[in-house]
């Protein structure tokens, strides 16, 4: 597979006027010429091959959307070199646009007051898609996403889940080679999220469309993207297979044991106690090999155990844990 995205030391800095607190500060801000430099993306390098599905992950303000905006040509990098499909995105933005599809989870590209198919028809004309190919793609995507019932309805009458499906279909109508998605599952309910994830997986595997996805939701990555790029504070933290990250961090699963009454101190070799609330005890399981059965076997009977829950670490925790263990996880 050929490399279709190459980021080499890409940096993006924003210059913002310096803000001061209080009323006097607001007045000072009017005449001040001081600026603060915000480093949104700092010296990031990676390559993405055709047909890959890559999750671009990080907390708020990590620089995910900024990177997507640079890859799609919206923003101009401050430093480094960026190539998408052999072109510099901001220099050949419109040529590049014909070969990429972009879905913004929080910004609709559909015409609010008109039926969905009007936005699709406009898209066909803008991308100059041949009529026959458009009909074929529309029929296929409509079937895959179950949109038959609402193509004739005004966008404002659709649910968020229906709208997101229409956004994704529209982004694929012109057969893009790369599909960029900026938080496509944000705000969706579990059923809609599931539909979006299944669709994207199918698009990647069956149509060979390269997918680059930003998200907060680890589940999105798990179901769609075998590869993960993790950033925080503008810097690259991890680039590799999700499996490798899980092996490294999956040990820190949270275990909660609820007892009928306080059984007194409970100590385990397979899990470390982090919080004791009497009848509720919280542990961290630090070894990936340790299963729930192992823990329960070690605990044994006679404690009046009422309930057990085992939670995978959420993304914020993964990143936090990653920071703590960073030296051991430098990509090879």
């Amino acid at each position, binding site marked *: 597979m050929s490399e279709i995205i190459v980021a080499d030391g890409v940096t993006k800095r924003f210059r913002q006027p310096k803000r001061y607190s209080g009323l006097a500060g607001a007045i000072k801000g009017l005449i001040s010429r001081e600026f603060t430099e915000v480093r949104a993306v700092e010296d990031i390098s990676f390559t993405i091959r055709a047909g890959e599905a890559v999750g671009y992950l990080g907390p708020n303000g990590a620089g995910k*959307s900024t990177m997507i*905006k640079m890859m*799609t040509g919206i923003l101009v990098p401050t430093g480094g070199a960026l190539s998408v499909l052999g072109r510099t995105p901001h220099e050949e933005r419109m040529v590049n646009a*014909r070969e990429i599809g972009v879905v913004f989870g929080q910004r609709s590209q559909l015409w609010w007051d008109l039926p969905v198919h009007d936005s699709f028809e406009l898209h066909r004309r*803008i991308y100059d898609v041949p009529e026959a190919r458009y009909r074929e793609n529309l029929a296929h995507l409509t079937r895959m996403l179950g949109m038959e019932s609402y193509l004739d309805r005004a966008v404002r009458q659709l649910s968020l889940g229906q709208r997101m499906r229409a956004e994704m279909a529209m982004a694929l109508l012109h057969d893009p080679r790369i599909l960029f998605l900026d938080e496509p599952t944000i705000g969706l309910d579990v059923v809609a999220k599931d539909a979006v994830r299944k669709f994207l997986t199918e698009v990647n595997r069956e149509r060979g469309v390269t997918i680059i996805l930003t998200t907060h939701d680890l589940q999105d990555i798990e179901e769609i993207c075998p590869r993960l790029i993790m950033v925080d504070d503008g810097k690259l933290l991890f680039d590799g297979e999700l499996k490798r990250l899980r092996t490294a961090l999956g040990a820190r699963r949270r275990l909660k044991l609820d007892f009928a009454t306080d059984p007194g101190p409970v100590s385990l070799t397979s899990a470390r106690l982090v919080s004791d609330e009497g009848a509720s005890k919280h542990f961290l399981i630090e070894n990936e090999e340790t299963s729930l059965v192992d823990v329960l076997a070690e605990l044994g009977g006679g404690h009046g155990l009422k309930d057990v829950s085992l939670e995978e670490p959420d993304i914020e925790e993964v990143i936090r844990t990653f920071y703590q263990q960073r030296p051991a996880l430098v990509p090879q």
Partner: protein
Amino acid sequence: MLAALRVLPFLVQLHMRATMEYRGAMILGWIAMAFSYASVYTAIALIVLRFENIGGWVWSEMALLLSFHLLGYSLGAAFSFVQFRQLEDIVRLGTFDTLMVKPISPWAYLAFSGFNIGYAGHITLALPLMTWALTQADVGWNPTLVLYLVGALVSSALITAAIITSIGASALVWVRSRHLYSIYFGFWELARYPLNIFPGIIQAIMVTVMPLAFMSYVPAAVLLDKEVPLLGPAAAPLALAAGPIATILAMLYWRWCIRNYQGAGG
């Protein structure tokens, strides 16, 4: 290129259909605008009739100036005003990003997808007023002067669209730009009157940094063979050139703003 041009009428069509979804609001808007212009023109007519002229311009001549002002503005603003006034919100909400990922000029998309049919009312008012004014005025008509009238109107529309585009484009870099429209409309109000009634500094501004004298006063003065302060005999060609020059400057500024677009959030 041809494919892109074919998209533009479809964008206008979609916008008109979307507007028709709210017919009541659209008709009320037209009525409100008609009352607004009627009251302003009545006030100006009363002043002219009471004092016989403004700066040497009698009512029929003032009617030509006002119709030039209204026609030039509405032709230019139909493609720009509402769209670029909203650009601040479009940038702030991040919607501008969605235009930047399409293989079409964001300017063309904005201008045509918001083409304002509401200005048809302005044109309906301006055309009979101009026709009447031209029959009353002492104009030595010949084919060159007819062409000049058409060219000056196009230039007037281009000045309007160029300034409105430039103000809107500022939002791409500074996010807030709407307050600049107040300055524009301040001078726009002044452009309804003969330039010679204003102090020299205002006259200078209105033929340079805010060239709204070229939208109405200068071409009307040329047609009526009146002397134009500051410009003299250069007034006639400058009225034709002002629109294209303003357009080129606005295009360069728009491109600079696009290149320096910072987006919002993320």
